[in-house]
């Protein structure tokens, strides 16, 4: 039995900066912690005093990977405060943007951040020499998702055209048709992706926990819904504060969140566990091909859940584009004139690639934001990660030090934590306590 005392600074292949503290003496965990060392960014404070129109510009910059999600959550919060219900066309286009973001984020995670673990390399770069086809495929899929966002929003990272109650730009039908063809032609890339991940061996580790996601819509959705728990309750997102409690654990550097119990998980695995039945046909087929049966309590399965969601999104995108192509797209320009400013409080909740995201704003009668709160998926997952780590380590304690550390990092990575995004809500570095 060995002793491990490691302080791994800046865990790699995750978004943002997190440190891992492992202290194992004689097989006993003395300390096992994920620290968030990213600089605090104070987004809620930045929002205060700014006009509602600027909220998307500001909150989109919380995270480059989930820019569409933050933008949408922000817009939905404002719309709910103003009492605006966006029309169907807007919702469809937003859903398309979401699909683009989910695919691009999941592919990035699967191929570029996680796959090197399974393929025994330290990053995607060596794969360019050894498996150029894999890398090219990843870029092809990711590029396709980015292009989808581009034709609607101008770009994926910090989209330009998403505003309160609509879009300032409508995609050209020609571009939509072209991208539709490209989506239809992804079949082979998807199959190859599935066979790549079918063959990986995930650690056999299970820990029962609560799974939360937005649900209750008839379809599998990222855009809307009420909060649904695997513990069998549902609640309107407006009341999120009643169920999601943020708290501070002694000796920890981060704010944690809890719902029914001490911890819960959000993200792809939570969504699939809670909404498996709503997946489309091909996604279900692929789930069974990958050996996924819900509910799964293995957090490493999050990777597989992401892959299933990619399939879900690809087919959903095809349907949505065909739908949009069948209608006349109506422009309302300039869009601002449609917005009636009203004093109020609004909550916007959406499913980000990594789980449920909440934005809540208080807006005054001039449209100026007077208060803001954002709860980010990774913040919600942190406690779960911590508890997983504590359950996992005793099981692998006999392995070599390298293997232990590698498995721990893999677990953290499986959650696809987005620390840059989480920082403004997490407590960051207790000065003087180190």
């Amino acid at each position: 039995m060995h002793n491990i005392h490691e302080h791994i600074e800046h865990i790699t292949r995750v978004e943002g900066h997190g440190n891992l503290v492992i202290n194992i003496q004689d097989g006993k965990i003395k300390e096992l912690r994920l620290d968030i060392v990213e600089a605090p960014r104070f987004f809620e404070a930045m929002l205060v005093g700014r006009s509602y129109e600027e909220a998307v510009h500001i909150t989109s910059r919380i995270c480059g990977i989930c820019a569409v999600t933050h933008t949408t959550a922000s817009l939905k919060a404002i719309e709910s405060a103003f009492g605006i219900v966006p029309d169907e066309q807007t919702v469809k286009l937003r859903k398309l943007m979401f699909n683009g973001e989910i695919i691009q984020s999941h592919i990035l995670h699967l191929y570029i951040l996680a796959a090197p673990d399974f393929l025994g390399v330290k990053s995607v770069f060596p794969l360019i020499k050894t498996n150029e086809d894999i890398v090219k495929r990843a870029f092809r899929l990711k590029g396709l998702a980015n292009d989808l966002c581009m034709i609607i929003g101008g770009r994926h990272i910090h989209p330009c055209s998403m505003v309160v109650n609509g879009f300032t730009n409508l995609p050209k039908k020609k571009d939509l048709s072209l991208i539709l063809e490209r989506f239809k032609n992804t079949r082979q890339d998807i199959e190859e992706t599935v066979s790549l991940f079918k063959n990986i061996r995930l650690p056999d580790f299970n820990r029962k926990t609560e799974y939360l996601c937005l649900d209750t819509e008839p379809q599998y959705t990222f855009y809307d819904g009420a909060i649904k728990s695997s513990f069998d309750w549902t609640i309107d997102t407006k009341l999120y504060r009643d169920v999601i409690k943020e708290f501070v654990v002694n000796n920890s550097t981060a704010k944690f969140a809890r719902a029914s119990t001490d911890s819960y998980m959000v993200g792809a695995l939570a969504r699939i566990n809670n909404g498996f039945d709503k997946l489309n046909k091909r996604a279900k087929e692929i789930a069974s091909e990958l050996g996924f049966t819900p509910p799964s309590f293995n957090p490493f399965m999050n990777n597989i859940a992401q892959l299933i969601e990619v399939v879900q999104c690809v087919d959903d995108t095809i349907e949505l584009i065909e739908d949009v192509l069948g209608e006349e797209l109506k422009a309302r320009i300039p869009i601002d004139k449609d917005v009636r400013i009203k004093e109020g409080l609004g909550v916007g909740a959406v499913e980000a690639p990594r789980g449920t995201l909440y934005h809540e704003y208080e807006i005054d009668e001039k449209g100026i934001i007077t208060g803001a709160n954002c709860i980010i998926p990774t913040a919600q997952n942190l406690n779960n990660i911590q508890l997983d780590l504590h359950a996992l380590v005793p099981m692998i304690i006999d392995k070599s030090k390298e293997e232990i550390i590698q498995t721990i990092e893999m677990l953290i990575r499986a959650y696809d934590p987005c620390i840059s995004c989480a920082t403004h809500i997490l407590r960051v570095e207790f000065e003087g306590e180190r």
Partner: protein
Amino acid sequence: MKKPTVAFFDFTCCEGCQLEVSNLEDKLIDLLKLVDIVMFREVMSEKSDTYDIAFVEGSISREIDIPRLEGIRKKAKILVALGSCAAIGGINCIKNFKDLEDVKKIVYGKDAGHFNTILAQPIDAVVKVEHYLYGCPMIKEEFVDLVTSLISGKKPVVPNYPVCVECKIQENICMFHKGVYCLGPITRAGCKAICTTYGNSCEGCRGLTDDVNINSQTDIMKEHGLSLDEALSKFKLYGGYLR
């Protein structure tokens, strides 16, 4: 010729600019034939202590960032500010216009005392910077031009004229003519006027050109219904460090 080594670092930011590098997709594969990426925490586990070109993303917003950035500066032959956070301070600077104690309290309440934050600033407020990639996020074409320029010994092309030039070239209807204010006339071009092309105002993410007429811009915004304070506050969205 030995391949130059390249490293990526990030400070306070959304990491969107690094993501944009990965969005180069096939071009990223070409890039790797040209340079050796020795550090890129977001996507690789290897680390290295020497590098020729350092791309630094994000602004400086904590005391402890300063020595880290200085360390990078010492090791790098060429330092590039990657994106507006690093180049002009970017969105992070909004907080500079508030009392920092209040800022901490708004977000962390009674735990505010645990946090250290300083005025957000671009990296050239701390160290010397050779090249700038503006934009939030940075523009891929400019990144390609910069890298090829550095390797071939050419001056990278960084426009020093306003977004209006590119906006006109795209044949957009001017936002002001649509009845909406726009910061295009004072903002550095290079983005191909992407926001106005997609129907939204330019909010100035690339910072000011070297030759702006702020007074005239303010007057025009006032003519379009903004109060002086509102107009000035728009300048602070991304251009905050330029007080």
